[in-house]
């Protein structure tokens, strides 16, 4: 690995013990994955679930971060502010809170930006197309690479942390032009209609299940597709499988044309998704009666302002039925904005709890005791809740509108 003078100095410990530890992890990692140099990153996005001892060890002697670094949601849906309202077990909360406090202190000292969201691009972390970055979260990674053309490898949490601390990452994989082209074209049969979140989600989830370690290009989507629909389409492709990048012709920056997305090469194959594929995918997460849901999870990926406005509109004059819960995941700045817009009051008055946690409940799914049926509009959330609950709860995906209708009633008068 060729190092610059400054990188070598970090490795030799001239810039403190934390940076020495961090750059040496990146050097060893870079050597193992075949990188021959480091690149400077434009931004980082990291996961606030670090073992506090690790954070302390890797930040020893540091005063501030070298690049813009945002924080992912609190992990496992746990939110230090909202856990009680969410119905999360007290013993669980008490085991998490001390670590949250330790991390929070270091994050504040070094200037980690307390976004607590999986959509940092909606919160000011919007690196340019073609830039190198290190982002965490399978969804943030695939969205950054696909929607923004801002390049990130699928780093794990510690290589990612080391990149944030040093401002460097090994140059390999998805950072390189030649590894970013689509190999597979995704098309829909004419009768596959895309209307609601779960239609887009089922398509993305099906693609994830059928594509391994490749990038894909959708060449027949409406170029007017909304940010939220793109989010529900692309995020599950990384959850159900190992799709690298989802290009969308006429929408995403590296796909002005189909040819450009393919890098001028012939595709390895064309995957045509049928109506039956979509219906079968929806049946993977299914229980008989929607009204039996104990909890509705919205915001995987996190709820945007537009979505919050729509949710508030649907909840106006309605209230959760007895024993039902509604969780919404939303980053801190979006919460403030939604409060200004009057959306949070409507949602909270109806009985919903808005949290800055992860609605896929990664990594240990602390759903309230006795939760048997979970309803969501997100295939990504369904995928993870289903696997993390290990059969304790059934999960179903449906549209946002049906999710809310299932657990609320009209207020009288």
């Amino acid at each position, binding site marked *: 690995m060729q190092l610059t003078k400054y990188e070598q100095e970090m490795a030799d410990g001239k810039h403190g013990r934390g940076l020495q530890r961090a750059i040496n*992890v990146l050097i*060893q*990692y870079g*050597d*193992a*994955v075949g990188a021959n140099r480091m690149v400077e990153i434009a931004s980082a996005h990291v*996961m606030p*679930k*670090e*073992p506090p*001892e*690790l954070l302390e060890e890797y930040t020893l002697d540091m005063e501030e971060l070298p690049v813009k670094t945002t924080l992912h949601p609190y*992990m496992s849906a746990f939110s230090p502010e909202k856990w009680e309202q969410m119905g999360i077990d007290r013993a669980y909360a008490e085991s998490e809170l001390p670590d949250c406090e330790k991390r929070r202190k270091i994050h504040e000292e070094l200037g980690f930006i307390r976004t607590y969201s999986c959509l940092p691009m909606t919160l000011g972390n919007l690196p340019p197309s073609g830039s190198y970055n290190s982002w*965490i*979260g*399978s969804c943030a*990674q695939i969205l950054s690479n696909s929607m923004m053309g801002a390049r990130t*490898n*699928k*780093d*794990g*949490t*510690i*290589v*990612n942390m080391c990149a944030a601390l040093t401002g460097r990452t090994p140059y390999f*994989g998805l950072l390189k032009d030649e590894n970013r082209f689509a190999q597979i074209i995704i098309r829909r049969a004419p009768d596959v209609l895309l209307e609601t979140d779960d239609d887009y989600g089922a398509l993305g989830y099906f693609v994830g299940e059928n594509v391994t370690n490749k990038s894909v290009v959708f060449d027949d989507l409406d170029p007017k597709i909304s940010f939220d629909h793109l989010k529900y389409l692309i995020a599950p492709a990384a959850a159900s499988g*190992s799709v690298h990048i989802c290009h969308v012709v006429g929408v995403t920056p590296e796909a002005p044309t189909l040819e450009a997305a393919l890098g001028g090469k012939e595709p390895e194959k064309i995957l045509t998704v049928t109506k039956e594929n979509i219906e079968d995918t929806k049946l993977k997460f299914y229980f008989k009666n929607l009204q039996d849901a104990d909890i509705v999870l919205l915001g995987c990926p996190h709820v945007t302002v537009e979505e919050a406005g729509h949710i508030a509109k649907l909840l106006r004059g309605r209230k959760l039925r007895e024993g039902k819960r509604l969780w919404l995941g939303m980053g801190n700045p979006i919460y403030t904005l939604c409060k200004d817009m009057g959306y949070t009051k409507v949602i909270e008055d109806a009985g919903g709890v808005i949290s800055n946690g992860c609605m896929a409940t*990664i*990594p240990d799914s602390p759903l309230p005791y006795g939760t048997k049926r979970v309803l969501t509009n997100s295939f990504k959330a369904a995928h993870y809740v289903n*696997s993390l609950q*290990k059969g304790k709860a059934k999960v179903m995906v449906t549209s946002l509108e049906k999710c809310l209708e299932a657990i609320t009633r009209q207020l009288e008068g």
Partner: protein
Amino acid sequence: MMKGRAVCGNIAKGEAIVFQAPFSFIGDMDPKSGEVTMANHPLFGTNLKGKVLIVTTGHGGTIAPFMAYEAQRNGCGPAAIACNYADNITVECAIVMGIPLVDGFQEDITKSINNGQMVIVDGNNGTIDVIS
């Protein structure tokens, strides 16, 4: 002695625990005890502390390195890992734990080594040696 690719780490000796499947430090092992948590698996409950983990590859989980770090810190991490193909997350976990990792053998390593055999893994030379 079997020769593969040296990925990272030095030399470690230990009893082989063989999974003819991909492994992840998130979901498959409890970082507090070192015990295998794969439900319905014959090795469920086996402790990986100080053992040599022999697996086909990893199965992802970007948060797995945090769990690997914790396991190591709690003194219950494996002593080394040998696999057919070391995916990037497994590489990251081994580096963070500071243990030898080797991969890329001619044979399927999970079939050439039996559960319970004593092995020496050399992360500098990319070898694995069965000693008993």
